[in-house]
């Protein structure tokens, strides 16, 4: 048993750090994220393009499709270092979600058409899964696609669609059949966001941000060649995709960064109650980190991390929320200041300390983490069923 990384892994880590610190990670993006300012669409593009240029956009792709072919340990290191550096979370919808579906279930034309653009971040993807009536019960979705000649006619709506306002493409679960059990009539469709009949309406969240949207489809014509795999098999592809969604779910690196910043702030406050809460989180974060490493070890050893990774989702999101909660406490009465929808620059002369201005909006923003990607209650159902067998 050895908790230390190999020399090769450490060399890899140093390479990642070097990219992050010495100009790879775009400076203008870094400046904003260091200050907690929301980054723009162009910033996102610059960041991901820089990554693509380095050859790291396909961080979790096999080499045959132009990816890095990294080991699970390398992926972990990559993700942790990006978190520690305060990078924005990588946009998963193209590279990490739709791409594996395309290379696994798509045909050669589809692979050739979509994968290179994803790898170079030429296309911005979003995800059309949730609907107003189907959240945790995804299979009850109602958006309908009817085949007419060589086109599907899509009608319905999707919701909580992250950054759809910037997206070029959306991958959708649509209902092509109502006759059987609800899982069986679902198909997986790629839709160009510029197609007539698509309307994107912002949903403003309680932190004042425009991150998610409703997407409405009215007689949207989608070429039949945009269907992935077989009609009616969409649910299978969706489940396959979900299994690929786990990358970096524990957010250990990002939480470490936040907790370390917080420790510095609180060290000047003479607040023993807050100190104690921070120490408790430090212990919990250590437990979370090792839990992820244990799963990684099992994986590298040929094991199949199953529902146990739900632990990482639950505890990773609780950790992020709890840290943000302590930022709010550290800000004291200044936590009530509204930092505006684009970080504290809109409140450019905050009366309190700098960190206060962002503390509450981060706290509010992170509420979503225990809701999306399968709510933490759903994760517990999964553990109960598949790990405890009850």
């Amino acid at each position, binding site marked *: 048993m050895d908790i230390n990384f190999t020399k090769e892994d450490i060399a890899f880590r140093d390479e990642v750090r070097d990219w992050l610190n010495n100009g790879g990670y775009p400076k203008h993006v870094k400046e904003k994220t260091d200050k907690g300012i929301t980054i723009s669409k162009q910033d996102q593009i610059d960041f991901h393009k820089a990554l693509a240029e380095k050859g790291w956009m396909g961080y979790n792709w096999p080499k045959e499709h132009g990816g890095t072919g990294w080991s699970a340990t390398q992926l972990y290191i990559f993700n942790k270092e990006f978190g520690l550096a305060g990078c924005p979370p990588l946009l998963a919808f193209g590279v990490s979600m739709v791409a594996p579906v395309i290379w696994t279930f798509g045909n050669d034309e589809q692979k050739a058409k979509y994968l290179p653009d994803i790898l170079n971040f030429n296309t911005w993807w979003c995800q059309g899964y949730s609907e107003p009536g189907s959240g945790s019960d995804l299979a009850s979705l109602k958006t309908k696609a009817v085949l007419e000649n060589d086109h599907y006619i899509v009608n319905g709506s999707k919701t909580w669609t992250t950054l759809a306002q910037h997206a070029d493409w959306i991958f959708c679960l649509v209902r092509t059949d109502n006759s059987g059990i609800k899982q069986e009539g679902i198909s997986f469709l790629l839709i160009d966001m510029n197609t007539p009949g698509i309307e994107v309406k912002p949903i403003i*969240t309680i932190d*004042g941000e425009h991150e998610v949207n409703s997407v409405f489809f009215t007689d949207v014509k989608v070429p039949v060649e945009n269907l992935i795999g077989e009609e009616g098999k969409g649910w299978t592809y969706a489940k396959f995709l979900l299994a690929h969604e786990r990358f970096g779910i524990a957010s250990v690196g990002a939480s470490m960064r936040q907790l370390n910043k917080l420790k510095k702030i609180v060290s000047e406050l003479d607040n023993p109650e807050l100190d104690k809460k921070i120490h408790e989180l430090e212990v919990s974060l250590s437990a979370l980190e090792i839990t992820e490493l244990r799963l990684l070890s099992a994986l590298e050893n040929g094991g199949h991390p199953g529902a146990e990774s739900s632990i990482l989702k639950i505890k990773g999101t609780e950790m992020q929320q709890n840290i943000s909660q302590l930022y709010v406490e550290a800000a004291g*009465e200044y936590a*009530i200041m509204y930092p505006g929808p684009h970080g504290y620059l809109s409140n450019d002369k905050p*009366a309190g300390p700098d960190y206060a201005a962002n503390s*509450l909006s981060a706290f509010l923003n992170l*509420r979503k983490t225990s*809701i999306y990607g399968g709510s933490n209650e759903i994760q517990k159902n999964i553990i109960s069923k598949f790990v405890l067998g009850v």
Partner: protein
Amino acid sequence: MNLNYSEEQVMLREQIQKFCESEYDFYTREKIVKSSDDFDSNVWKLFAEQGWLSMPFSEENGGLGFGAVELAVLFEEFGKALVIEPYLATVVLSGTLLDKSNYSKKNDLIEKICSGDMHISLAYAEANKNYDYLNSDTTLDNNILNGTKTLVLNGGNSDKVIVTCIKDKKLTLVIIDSNTKGVSINSFKTIDDQSCAEISFENVEIDNDAIIACDLEAIELINESINLATLCVSAEAVGCMESCYLKTVEYTKGREQFGQPISNFQVLQHRMVDMFVESELAKSLLFKAMLEVDSNSEDKYKHVSALKSQIGRSGKLSAQDAVQLHGGMGVSEEMMIGHYLKKMVSIDALFGNSDYHLKKFAS
């Protein structure tokens, strides 16, 4: 022993509830919030017409002479409707301070507050003082005021500001017009859709008759005013907590997933039970605190602190649970539920958070 509301108190609550239902539904509130003003002056006029702006002032000063119980009723209902109008700043913090003071000009000021024609803010806080409101770096020397106050509730909309400062080493309260030369006001929004300001005073000349109180009298006025305000925001929190569990029960009953309302899931049921229980327990502490304040007992600070400490913990948790059980809808600005969370966090931060008041309770 009788912990039932009187008929008058029940009627007061119904009156406020009716008002909030008909004049202050969430849609109306959103319009006010999104307008260029910090609050709706028409609503304020209606408050005056209902007599609510006169509630806590003694009858000899032209008020209704209502006590902490009635104020708590008002704030509970304000909490449920998430009212943003600056009742706390003008009526509670500044108005009741004036009412209890020996300030010679107070009658005129209170009259204008009651009629809705004047807003006054209390500038009690300074940066990095850690809720110690008796500790001030603002000075009054030879009638010249210098210093900077932060987090002045409704400071950007007030006609006058009551300022705590140090004169001859003693805490002193002065009242000045907001447009006096040397006063600069930087107003910003708070997370719960209200407003507050940083106000700095640079060689501001003060009239001789601007001093409200000095030394022990000033300290007591500040302590009482902030204690009453703490009670009020706590009552507001209790209203929020009640709405949180009621709205969550309603939502989960209507939300179907897996072919049934999600209120069928036992885990959600027990979570809502916890929210209900915490709401009732907070209400009990509110009863204790408001009755101690009303009887002006020695323990009035202690029990307000007990209440504030509890709602700081359980109120935030309840609102978080409410958001969680609303799923995506919980984090959407269009639903009321997320705004309760913002309100609860804001209340915890105001006048000392949960840990602070637990210590104060124990001391």
